[in-house]
């Protein structure tokens, strides 16, 4: 299916991005990115998933101008990367963020606000709002040195939003957070989209991706393996059809070729393989006097798709 996307509608456009490193002594070439191409539309939540070492963080650091690509190009909100202009409208949370541990959160936000050129009174107002929003009001006077990992992550989110960015790039934003913290970050990401922002985030946690993203890209070994909406990624492959019927007599040969057969009193549940002729099977069940309770295609989960894509990337020499 072809999608027509105007450049003006893109928050992020990455074209054939490549990055090679040399190991310090052996000078062995390591290809961290091997032609990554994708687009993120404005107003979307885009999940970037992949195993450790897949190239997620390298891609993000390249977009943020921390790493220079070996080749390829990228634009952020139509502005070429790397450039100061591109970074002006972006908020960024690095992976496991490290801050100046002698600062308090208001001091950190003041520093970041100054770098964005936000005037003094507005800087203070915005910092106060964000501290409240990320739930750090009671830790205002504490040095970041005394913060737990979860608190640091919240401070990181606050600084990423200091410039009221159009695009928010979050590298593993749920890392180090407890389930409540993760839920709060998910809600924050959703509220950013509701406010018209675009959110691009990397994660390992697939349930978060399924829950909140508009589009997902799976990266492994420095290459994009698949991308689409979560529904598209899993709809491409129906694994089986789960059927439940109410029998009036014996099941007979209805269970032939079926999987996961369970019978509870007059109810029979089973799974037919994706290749099975479901209409013919249902006709046979009707003929046997059975009443159909439910017929549901079972799709591949995002996790299963993810594992399959990663395994297939790993299998390539």
């Amino acid at each position, binding site marked *: 299916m072809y999608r027509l996307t105007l450049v003006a509608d893109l928050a992020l456009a990455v074209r054939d991005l490549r990055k090679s*490193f040399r190991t310090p002594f052996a000078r062995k070439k390591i290809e961290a990115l091997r032609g990554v191409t994708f687009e993120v539309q404005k107003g979307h939540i885009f999940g970037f998933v992949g195993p450790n070492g897949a190239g997620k963080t*390298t891609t993000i*650091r390249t977009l*943020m*101008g*921390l*790493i*220079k690509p070996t080749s390829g190009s990228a634009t952020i909100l139509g502005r070429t990367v790397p450039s*100061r*202009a591109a*970074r*002006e409208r*972006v908020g*960024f949370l*690095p992976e496991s*963020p*490290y*801050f*100046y541990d*002698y*600062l308090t959160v208001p001091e950190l936000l003041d*520093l*970041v606000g*100054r*770098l*964005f*050129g936000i005037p003094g009174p507005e800087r203070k107002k915005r910092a106060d709002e964000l501290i409240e929003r990320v739930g750090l009001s009671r830790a205002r006077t504490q040095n970041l040195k005394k913060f737990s990992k979860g608190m640091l992550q919240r401070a*990181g989110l606050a*600084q990423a939003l200091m410039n009221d960015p159009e695009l928010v790039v979050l590298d593993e934003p749920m890392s180090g957070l407890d389930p409540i913290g993760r839920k709060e970050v998910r809600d924050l990401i959703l509220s950013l989209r509701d406010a018209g922002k675009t959110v691009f985030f990397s994660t390992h946690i697939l349930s978060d991706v399924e829950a909140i993203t508009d589009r997902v890209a799976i990266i492994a070994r420095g290459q994009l393996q698949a991308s689409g909406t979560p529904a598209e990624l899993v709809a491409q492959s129906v694994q089986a059809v789960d059927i439940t019927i109410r029998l009036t007599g014996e099941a007979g040969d209805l269970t032939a070729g079926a999987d996961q057969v369970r019978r509870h009193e007059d109810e029979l549940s089973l799974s037919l393989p994706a290749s099975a002729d479901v209409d013919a099977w249902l006709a046979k069940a009707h003929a046997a006097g059975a009443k159909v309770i439910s017929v549901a295609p079972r799709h591949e989960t995002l996790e299963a798709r993810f594992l399959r894509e990663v395994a297939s990337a790993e299998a390539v020499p």
Partner: protein
Amino acid sequence: MTARLWAIALNTFREAVRIRVLYGFLVLVVGANLLAIVLGVMANNEEARVSRDVGLAGISLFGSLTAIFLGVFLLYTEVQRRTIHVIASKPIERWEFVVGKYLGMGLVLSVLVGVFGLAMIGMLALQDVPVTSAVVKAIVLAWMEVLVVAAIAIFFSSFSTPFLSGIFALALWVIGRLTPDLENAVRTGAGSIRAVAKVTLAVVPDLHLFAVSGRAVEGDVVSVHADFVSWGYVGLASLHGLAWIVGLLAFAAILFSRRDFA
């Protein structure tokens, strides 16, 4: 641009004043001044001379060592601790970051030299030694030297580890103090020695310009105890130092801009 430079400078100042080693240097300088009093008493009728010499040497030595210490660590730790990821992802150019770091360091070092100078002046006052304009000029020259040494340290720190940067900066500081000897080697040395001395003079900042007491300047021996250099000389030497600072920071910024922060 100014706001961004100031933001980095202010943060660097905050960071540096938390480094306890700095206070160690401060104690050493005060100790050196106290030692000067003792030495002055031991050297009959030479209290003023000893106090001025030891005081100025203390400012120059400990100021330069502090500059090297701060210069090799403050930039490097930004990369090592990955705090650079938060800063460099904001709309700030790499050169602005390097210059901002330097300005913050310069601010700390200026405060330190100011405190060192006040400690020296206090000790001189305790011994009823007059604080002449020569002493003030010598302190200003020592301050400029410290700022140049800080730029040398930042330059090496932009591409090297603190250990190597420290060694390189220390070596350059020592060689920079030996420029009269190098000039002599150019005049009188054998072929290869002359060539090495010539190249060294071209690539090493002339730090001797900032510590001229007891040496000849344009044919006349100047001394902080008698006839010292003019304010015009101080101005020209400062301009020379400023040119080196700009050059070193420009190279540091270029090298830092080429780095990947993986």
